C-alpha cells in the first residue's frame, strides 16, 4: 500500500498548498484594500484613480495565489509520476 500513500499524500499536499496561499492572499489583498478605502475616505475626488490602482494591485496579489492553485491542480490531475506509481499499485 506504499503506492496508495503517494496519492493520499499528494492530495493532502494540494489542499495545504492552496489553503496557505489563500490565507496569505487574503491578508495581502485586505491590506491593499484598506489603504485604498482610506485614500478614498480622505479624498473622495480621487476615487476613480484609486479604484483603478487598487484593482490592478489586487490582480497582482491574486496572481500569486493562482500560481499555488496551478501547482495544486498539477498535483491532483497531472502529476508526472502518477501513471508509473499507479502501475506499481496494480
Amino acid at each position, binding site marked *: 500500500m506504499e503506492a496508495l500513500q503517494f496519492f493520499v499524500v499528494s492530495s493532502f499536499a494540494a489542499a495545504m498548498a492552496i489553503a496557505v496561499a489563500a490565507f496569505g492572499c487574503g491578508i495581502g489583498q485586505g491590506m491593499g484594500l484598506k489603504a485604498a478605502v482610506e485614500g478614498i475616505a480622505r479624498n473622495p475626488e480621487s476615487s476613480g484613480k484609486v479604484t483603478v490602482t487598487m*484593482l*490592478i494591485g489586487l*490582480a497582482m496579489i491574486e*496572481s500569486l495565489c*493562482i*500560481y499555488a*492553485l*496551478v501547482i495544486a*491542480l498539477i498535483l491532483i*490531475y497531472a502529476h508526472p509520476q502518477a501513471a508509473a506509481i499507479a502501475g506499481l499499485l496494480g
Partner: protein
Amino acid sequence: MAHPFLFLVDFFDVNGSLYHFAHKYPHVMYTWLVMILLAGFGYLAAKKPALIPTKGQNFFEVIIGGLEDFLVETVGEGGRWFTPLAITIFLFVFISNLIGLVPGFFPPTATLNTTAACALVVFFFTHYIGVKYHGVKYIKHFMGPVWWMVPLIMPIEIIGHLARVLSLSFRLFGNMMGHELVLGILFMLAGLYFAPLPIMALGIFVAFVQAFVFFLLSIIYFSGSLEHAH
C-alpha cells in the same frame, strides 16, 4: 477533467474531415472563432469610416481611443507605435475570456498553449524594442549600476526577464482554468439550482480584469525597455 460538451467540436462530428483535429485541439478551434469574431466586427465597424461615426465605429473608437490614451499616459509619447500590438492583445484576451462564459464554449486562454504564446510574443517584442532603440547598448540594461557587480546582477536580470514570461502566462492560464473548473464542479454538484450563476457573474469581472492586467503589464515591460539604463 475533460470538458463534456463543446459546440464547435461537436459541429465537426457531422463532417468527418476535421474530427480528430477538433477533438484533440479544441483551443485552436475556439481561437479561430475568436479571430473570425474580432476580424468580422472590426470590418463591419470600419467599412466606411466617416467623420461623424456610426454606432459600430463609435463603439470601437471609444475602446481603442481610451486604451490608446491610457497607453500614452503610461509609456509616454514615444510608445504610441505599440498600440496595434497592445490593443490586439487586450481584445484577443478579453474576447477569449468572455467566450468561456457561454455554455458549450471553451475559452482558448484556459490552456497554457495560448497564454504562453501571448507571453512569448510580449517577451520577444520587448527585446526587439530594446535592440531597435538602443542598439548594442541594450546590454547595459542587464548590467546594473556598477561594472564589478555584473556577474551577480546579470543572471538575476536574465532570470527576472524569464520570470516575466512565466508570470504572464500562468496568471492568465490559472485564472481561466480555475474559473472553468469551478464552473464545472458547481454544475456537477448543483446544476439544477443555478449554482454556477454567481460564479459566472464574477467571471465577467475576472475576464475584463485579467485582460486589462495582461495589457498593462505588457506596456509596462515595453516602456521598461524603452527607457535609459539606470
